[in-house]
C-alpha cells in the first residue's frame, strides 16, 4: 500500500488506529453521516487481527486466536456478512493436550456441550454430568452478564450520574434471577477460577482447559482471586466466532468502513493529538511528517496509556489523571510463536490432522506454576501453549500442503529480568517447540521457520503499551472502572477526545464492543 495523504484537511471525526475497534467505531460514525478519517501507523489495517507474512508464503492470522467474543449484534448491524464475513456454526472444538510430558489423557472439548459432555464422561462420568449443568448455569446467567458488558458502563464512583431509571433497570435484571441466583452471582466474581471450577469438577485436565480462557493475557494465575470474573465474562460473551479468524473480521470491517464512506490512511503515525491547552477541546491530530488534520472529534483506539500519556502534550490532562494512568497496570504476559511447517500437523492421539485449536496445561497447578514465573520477572520454563493451526480451515495461508502454527505462550513477562534479546527469544522458542514436539511428534522436522514475539516485540509491532494484549490488564478494579473514573463512558477530560479501544469497557480481545459503545457515546453528544 502506498503512502498517501488525507484527501481533506478537515473531518468530522478522526479515528486513531485501524484495529477492529477503530474500524468499528469509524463505521458507526460514518453510517451516522459523519465524515471520518482513520489513521493507522502500520502499513495494513486490522491491528492485532492483521495477517502477517512471517516467512515467504506463510501468513499468520494475527495475534489473537479467539474470535468467540465478537458480538453478533454488531456483525448484523454493520452488515458484515454483506462484506464477506462468515460466522461459524458453533464454537470451535479444542483438543486439550494435558501436561508437557505428552503422556496422560487428552480431551476433545467440543463446542457442542452435549458432545463435550460425552467426551468428558470418558474421564469422569460425574464431570460429564456436571459439565451440562455448568453450561446450563452459564446460559441462565449469560444474558444478565451480557447486559452489563454490552451496555455503556455505569460510573461506580458516581453511580447517581447513570440515572435512577438506568440503575433500577440493571438491579431488576439481576433480581429477576431470583434471590438464590442473585446471591450466587455476587459470590462468583471475587472468587478464583480454581476455586469455582473446583466446586464443579474433579478432572484436572478439564479444569485446566476451562481456566485458561480466564487467565490468558492477564497478570493472574488460576488461584488468583477475582480470576473467576474473567471466566464469567468470557463465557457470557462467547458466541460461535468468525470463520477465518481475525484477518477475516478485519477485512470485512475494512470493506464495511469504506462502503460507509470512511477514509483509511495507512502508514500515518499520529505524533500528537492537538489541543490548545488544559480544558480546551480537541482540534485534530499532527501526523509524523508534519501534516495536520483537523476534526472536532478524535476517537483513539490505541491503549489509554498511550493516548493520555504520550499523544497528548504534557499538562493537557489534570495531574491526578496522569498519575492514575501511570498506575494503570499494563504488564504483558503473553508471547507468540509462529511456525511455518512443511506438511500437516498431527497431534498424538488425534484421529486426523484436522485439529485447528489445541492447548496444553494438564492441571490448574501447571498453569499456576507457569504464572508464578512472571512474578519474579522470568519467563516460564514450562509455559502453557494455546495452539492454533489456521491452515486447517484456510490452506491458502501457506504454500500447498504446508501449515501455519500460531502459539500464544503463557506466561512470559514484558519486564523480563535482563531484558528480551535474541538469546532469550530463541530460548523461549526452543522450549515451546520442545513442548509441541511431545504433543505432535515429528513436527520439529517440518519447521521451515519460526518467529518469536516477546511482549516487548508485541509492544513494538502493534504499538500497545507493555505488550499488553488487552490494552491494559483485565483485573477486577480495571474492568469495573476502565481505565479511570474520569474516562468511564469513553470520554476524556479533553472535550471531543474519546477512547474507543480495548482499554475501555468492556475490555480487550476481539469483540467490536468498545468501538460500538464509544461511537454511541460520540453520537449522543
Amino acid at each position, binding site marked *: 500500500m502506498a503512502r498517501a495523504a488525507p484527501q481533506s484537511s478537515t473531518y468530522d471525526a478522526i479515528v486513531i488506529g485501524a484495529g477492529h475497534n477503530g474500524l468499528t467505531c469509524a463505521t458507526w460514525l460514518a453510517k451516522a453521516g459523519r465524515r471520518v478519517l482513520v489513521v493507522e501507523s502500520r502499513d495494513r489495517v486490522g491491528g492485532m487481527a492483521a495477517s502477517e507474512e512471517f516467512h515467504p508464503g506463510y501468513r499468520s492470522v494475527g495475534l489473537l486466536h479467539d474470535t468467540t467474543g465478537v458480538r453478533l449484534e454488531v456483525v448484523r448491524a454493520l452488515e458484515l456478512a454483506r462484506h464477506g464475513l462468515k460466522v461459524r456454526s458453533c464454537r470451535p472444538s479444542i483438543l486439550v493436550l494435558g501436561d508437557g510430558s505428552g503422556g496422560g489423557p487428552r480431551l476433545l472439548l467440543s463446542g457442542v456441550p452435549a458432545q463435550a459432555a460425552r467426551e468428558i464422561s470418558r474421564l469422569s462420568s460425574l464431570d460429564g454430568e456436571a459439565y451440562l449443568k455448568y453450561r446450563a448455569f452459564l446460559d441462565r446467567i449469560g444474558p444478565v452478564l451480557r447486559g452489563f458488558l454490552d451496555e455503556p458502563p455505569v460510573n*461506580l*464512583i*458516581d453511580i*447517581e450520574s447513570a440515572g435512577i431509571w438506568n440503575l433500577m433497570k440493571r438491579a431488576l435484571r439481576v433480581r429477576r434471577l431470583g*434471590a*438464590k441466583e*442473585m*446471591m*450466587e452471582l*455476587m*459470590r*462468583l466474581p*471475587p*472468587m478464583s477460577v480454581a*476455586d469455582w471450577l473446583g*466446586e464443579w469438577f474433579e478432572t484436572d485436565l478439564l479444569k485446566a482447559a476451562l481456566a485458561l480462557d480466564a487467565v490468558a493475557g492477564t497478570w*493472574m494465575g488460576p*488461584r*488468583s*482471586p*477475582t480470576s473467576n470474573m474473567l471466566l464469567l465474562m468470557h463465557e457470557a460473551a462467547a458466541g460461535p466466532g468468525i470463520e477465518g479468524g481475525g484477518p477475516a473480521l478485519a477485512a470485512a470491517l475494512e470493506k464495511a468502513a469504506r462502503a460507509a464512506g470512511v477514509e483509511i490512511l495507512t502508514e500515518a503515525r499520529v505524533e500528537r493529538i492537538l489541543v490548545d491547552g488544559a480544558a480546551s477541546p480537541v482540534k485534530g491530530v499532527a501526523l509524523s511528517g508534519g501534516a495536520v488534520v483537523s476534526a472536532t472529534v478524535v476517537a483513539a483506539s490505541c491503549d489509554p496509556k498511550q493516548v493520555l500519556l504520550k499523544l497528548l502534550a504534557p499538562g493537557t490532562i489534570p495531574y*491526578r489523571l496522569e498519575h492514575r494512568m501511570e*498506575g494503570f*497496570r499494563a504488564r504483558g504476559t503473553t508471547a507468540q510463536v509462529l511456525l511455518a511447517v512443511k506438511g500437516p500437523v498431527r497431534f498424538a492421539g488425534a484421529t486426523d490432522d484436522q485439529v485447528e485449536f489445541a492447548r496444553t496445561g494438564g492441571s490448574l*497447578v501447571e498453569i*499456576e*506454576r507457569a504464572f*508464578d514465573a512472571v*512474578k*519474579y520477572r522470568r519467563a516460564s520454563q514450562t509455559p502453557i501453549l494455546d495452539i492454533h493451526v489456521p491452515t486447517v480451515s484456510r490452506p491458502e495461508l501457506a504454500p500447498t500442503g504446508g501449515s501455519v502454527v500460531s502459539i500464544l505462550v503463557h506466561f512470559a513477562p514484558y519486564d523480563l529480568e535482563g531484558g528480551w534479546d535474541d538469546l532469550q527469544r530463541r530460548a523461549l522458542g526452543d522450549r515451546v517447540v520442545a513442548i509441541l514436539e511431545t504433543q505432535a511428534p515429528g513436527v520439529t522436522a517440518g519447521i521451515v521457520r519460526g518467529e518469536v514475539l516477546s511482549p516487548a516485540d508485541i509492544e513494538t509491532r502493534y504499538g500497545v503499551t507493555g505488550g499488553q494484549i488487552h490494552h491494559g490488564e483485565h*483485573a*477486577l*478494579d480495571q474492568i*469495573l*472502572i476502565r481505565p479511570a*473514573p474520569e474516562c468511564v463512558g469513553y470520554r476524556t477530560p479533553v472535550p471531543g477526545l474519546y477512547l474507543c479501544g480495548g482499554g475501555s469497557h468492556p475490555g480487550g480481545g476481539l469483540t467490536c464492543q468498545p468501538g460500538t459503545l464509544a461511537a454511541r457515546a460520540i453520537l449522543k453528544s
Partner: protein
Amino acid sequence: MSQAARPARSSYDAVVVGGGHNGLVCAAYLAKAGRKVLVLERRHVLGGAAVSEELHPGFTFSVCSYVVSLMRPHIIRELDLPRHGMELIPLEASFLPLPDGRSLCRWADKERTRREIETFSKKDAEVYPEFGLAMTRLARFAKHVIDQPAPDPASLDPRELARLLRLGRALQGFDAEARYLNFQLMTMSAVDFLDRWFESPVLKSPMSVSGIIGTFLGVRSPGTAYVLLHHYMGEIDGAFRAWGFSKGGTGGVSRAIASAARGFGAEILTSTPVSRVLLEGGRAAGVVLENGDEIRSKVVVSGLDPHRTFLKLVGERNLDPEFVVQIRRYKMRGSSGKVNIALDRLPEFKCRPGDGLHLQGDIAICPSIDYLERAHDDAKYGDFSRRPYINAVIPSISDPSVAPPGKHILSCFVQYAPYQIKEGPSHWPQRREAFGEAVIDTLEEYIPNLRSLILFKQVLTPWDLEQEFGLTEGNIFHGELSLEQLLFLRPAAGWARYRTPVRRLWLAASGAHPGGGIMGSPGELAAKTMLTEGEI
C-alpha cells in the same frame, strides 16, 4: 474458675457453646438483658484462641492470638471491661529488620517515622502521613459496615432497602476521590494498591503484609487491599491505638469479658465439652454434653466455626442438603502457625543492636515482596514456607508480669503453614519439628545467637490449632476472609444474620459478619439481633 462443675439449673434461656471471646461477649450481652445464660467451654481455660497460659514456669504466653487490634470500643464501654481488669498497652513501633543490615522502624512518633522512611525514599516519607489520613477517613466508612449486621441485598423488606440507602449515603458523603480510593481498596491487591502510593519496596513490603494475615492469599492476590484498613481502625475510635498488648496476655481480654458476663449473672463452665445440639422437631432445644447430660434452653448459641457448628454439632443429616453444600464450600484453609518461645534474655538484632524501643512493638520478617510471594508459592503447592513471613512480638518488655525478671517471651505468628500439606494434614505432627526449625533458622538470620537463648519452645501447626483449639483446618478467623466470604455471604448466602437454618440455633462467632480478630462484634451483634427480634 469453676472446674468441671455441673450447671446450676437444668434449663436456661440460652446455652452458649464455646467460651471464646465472641461466645463470652454474646453471653455477657444476653445476661445483661436479664436472660439466664450458660456458657460451656471444652477446654480447662476460657478464651478460645484469645487465651493466656503458663506453658513454662513463670512464663505466661498468649498462646494463639497475640495482639488486640479491633476490639470494638463500644463493647469495651458497654461491658465495662476495664473495671473487669482489661488493660491494653499500645504497641510502640513496627520494626522491619533486613538481612543486609539495614532496617526500618515505624514509630508512634510521626516525625521519627518520617526520618526513618526518608533514608529509603524522600518521596515516600512525604506521602506516608497523607496515606494515613486518607485511610483513616475510609476507616470511618468501614465502621458503618462492621458495627451492624451485614446488609441483605436479596431482601425486599423496605427496612433493608433503607439500610442499604444509609450505607450508600455514608459513601456518597465522601468526595469522588475518596470513593475511588474506597473502590480500589475493595478490589485491588495490597501490593497493587500500595504501588499507587509508594515507591520503596522496603516500605511496601511490611505494609502489604497486613493484607494477608491469617488468609491463604498472597500480597499480590486481588482482594487483599481492604485489610490494610484494619491498621487505621483504632485511630478513629480514639480509645486506643490500632494494635496493643493485653496486660497478662490476650487471655486477659477473655477473662475480663467472662468476669463481666458473670457480673450480669451468666454461668460459665470450663472442661465441659458439648457433643451435639439437642434437636426437637427440627428446633434446637438445648445441648447434649459429652458425658451424656442434657441441658435444655430456649436458644443455643454457637461460638464455634461454621464447619464445626453445622457438620459436627448439628450433623449433616439434620440439615437441608443444599445448605450442607454451602457450608462445605465455605473455605476454612488455615494458613498459619504459631511459635512461642521463652528466652533467657532479650534478643539482639544484628541490624539494630541494643534493647531499644524498636523491640516494643511488632517485628516483621518480610524483607521483600518477592520474599512474601515465594513464601506463598511454597504453601500453594502444599508445603510450609521454607522462609516464612513472621510477625513477632516481645510482650514481656512492656508487660513484665508475663515473664520472670530479665527473661522474655518471643511470640511468633508464622505464615504460611497450610493445613493441607501434600502428605495430608494428619502428617503435621511429623513435620512440626522441621516447621519450628524453619522459623528459628529464619530468625537467626537476624538474631544470630537466638538458639542459645531459648529456654522453652512451643510449635503450633494448623493441625494443632484444630486439635487443641477446635479451629477447623486451623483457620484463625473461622473461615477465609476473602471477598466472597464476607458481609451477606458469611458464612452462607441467606444466613448472614446470625440465625441458622436450624430454628433457635444461632451463630455468634468469627464465621459470621464481620469476621475474625479479637473484635467481639459477631458475639455482640448476634446477641442484639436475638434480643431485638424477640427470639429470647
